């Protein structure tokens, strides 16, 4: 067993209400603009707790449209399983000059280039 084994689990995401920015729930219950800040819940119970927390923040109008998605953590960085979440955590693949990837808060992986 290595010390930095890949952890698989789920992340809670949403859009921030006031500006629509994509955000991820962190360990301390804040919302991070960077997917690397996200807390990865590996157990169903922990995932349910994230969801509950998200619903709470929807009720107090911080975020909207919370949901869980599959991801894994490798070497301290978070990778979304699905391309849609990778695009959400970077920005448009056709405008790498825009979005999180251009503002120093993109995920720690390369944008898809071309097709």
């Amino acid at each position: 067993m290595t010390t930095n084994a890949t952890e698989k689990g789920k992340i809670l995401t949403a859009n921030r209400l006031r500006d629509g920015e994509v955000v991820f729930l962190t360990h301390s219950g804040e919302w991070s603009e960077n997917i690397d800040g996200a807390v990865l819940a590996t157990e169903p119970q922990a995932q349910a707790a994230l969801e509950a927390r998200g619903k709470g923040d929807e009720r107090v109008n911080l975020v909207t449209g919370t949901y869980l998605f599959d991801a894994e953590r490798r070497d301290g960085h978070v990778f979304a399983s699905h391309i849609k979440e990778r695009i959400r955590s970077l920005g448009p693949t056709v405008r790498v000059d825009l979005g999180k990837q251009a503002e120093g808060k993109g995920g720690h992986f390369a944008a898809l280039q071309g097709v």
Partner: protein
Amino acid sequence: MYRYDEFDSQFVNDRVSQFRDQANRRLTGELSEDEFRPLRLMNGLYLQLHAYMLRIAVPYGSLDSAKLNTLAYIAEKWDRGYGHFTTRQNLQFNWIKLEDTADILAKLAEVEMHAIQTSGNCIRNVTTDQWAGAAADEIADPRPIGELVRQWSSLHPEFSYLPRKFKIAVTGSPNDRAAVKVHDIGLRLHLNDRGERGWEVLVGGGLGRTPVIAVTVRDFLPEHELIGYLEAIMRVYNLYGRRDNKYKARIKILVHEIGAEKFRAEVESEYARRPHADTKVEERELQRISAYFAAPKFEKLPRWSATFEEARAKNKDFANWVRTNIAAHRADGYAIVNISLKPEGGIPGDATADQMRVVADLGQRYSFDEIRVSHHQNLVLPHVKRDDLFAIWKVLQASDLATSNIGLAGDIIACPGLDYCSLATARSIPIAQSISRRFADLNRQHEIGPLRINISGCINACGHHHVGHIGILGLDKKGEEYYQITLGGSSADSASIGTILGPGFAGEDVPDAIEKIVNTYLAHRQPGEEFLAAYRRLGPQPFKEALYAAA
């Protein structure tokens, strides 16, 4: 030039302050998202992948320089310096903040623009020919009828909560450029032997997950009966349209399920039942509306422009541009300029704020202050003197706006797809870019001739892939993007829905596949035969063989 009357501008201003209040109540939590969502959608505000998206109506695709400059201003102040022109003759901004939206709507209202009825289950903004009032082949300007329909339908209580959204398109030309056969209702102008005007009424066309070509319910409806008849159609739809299932709620499903004959009979009996006097279109009213669209005062010019001919003879690039991007104008000495928003490798329909200003300026200087948006995601200067074409081309060239590919392989329609859209199953823009690069050689594009390539990032078909000569639909197979190719679609007069050729392709294989299709056409075409005609003659077989033959 189209403008709102006083009633409308009062109304638009009221809507802005209403929305400001609603947005504030949402931000402070008085309104929940469930309460607020329908309100923001009614004002064109969607939540997309990276931010909010604001969809701004461009009625009849008609803009003036003040409007286009305002869009440029909004792009820079509140967005990221660009906007996306869509197939619905709208403009979408992709990076909007909820907290800024009311200010943006107020700015739009200053130039009589808004985002009303760009969303929701109402009658959406009526669309028409981007060359309306300018095209040489036009019987009459379709916009007054579009406007009549808009004024009748806007906020009509009976039509604000339809089973589903409702889209109407109008064409006044025998060469349909408004895709009337793939709209919920399409209206098409005809003249009878005595020179009287009548409208062919087509119902039940649409794309999305169930693509269908509309059926004609009336061949020749006298103009003054138009509103009464449309009302009868809407009543039948409101009564029988399926509200239980959103995928079956469009009028096309109703027409399909009960059959064209029965549908026609229902409409006719509803229409016969009603007192026509109430809904008769008054000549005076139509004239009042027509005045908003009055043609500019064209000068009497010779048909032949020496300046133009000389420039064309001397400059091959200009001559090529003229060949594809210029269309015949109804007034002698004038031309229609089509501005391609599809440079090689570009994002179809995207325009920067600077480009918007350049076009606004050209419109003001050379085109009676008129600019149009086409449903092919391009811009149009509708009324330009042939004498000025060369000067205009030079300006466009300096802003990467002079690509001479209108109607050719590089003039690709593509929806935002997974790069922006939360409903997408795959990306569409990178596919458009890679095809555009593959066919970068403009001489080759000219050699291939008219070709429509349309791309959608999901089954909703915003990129009109079903009616592309070559259609590409992006899907998700176990988390991977893949693309289904259809051939033989068309939204023009002989509209048809494309046929799926076979299994889909990975994104990186799409340009090769398109190239094989095009080469098959080139190998089989008869002299002068365009792609669509060749496909219709040959059928899918040779294309299938080229695509799927064992390597």
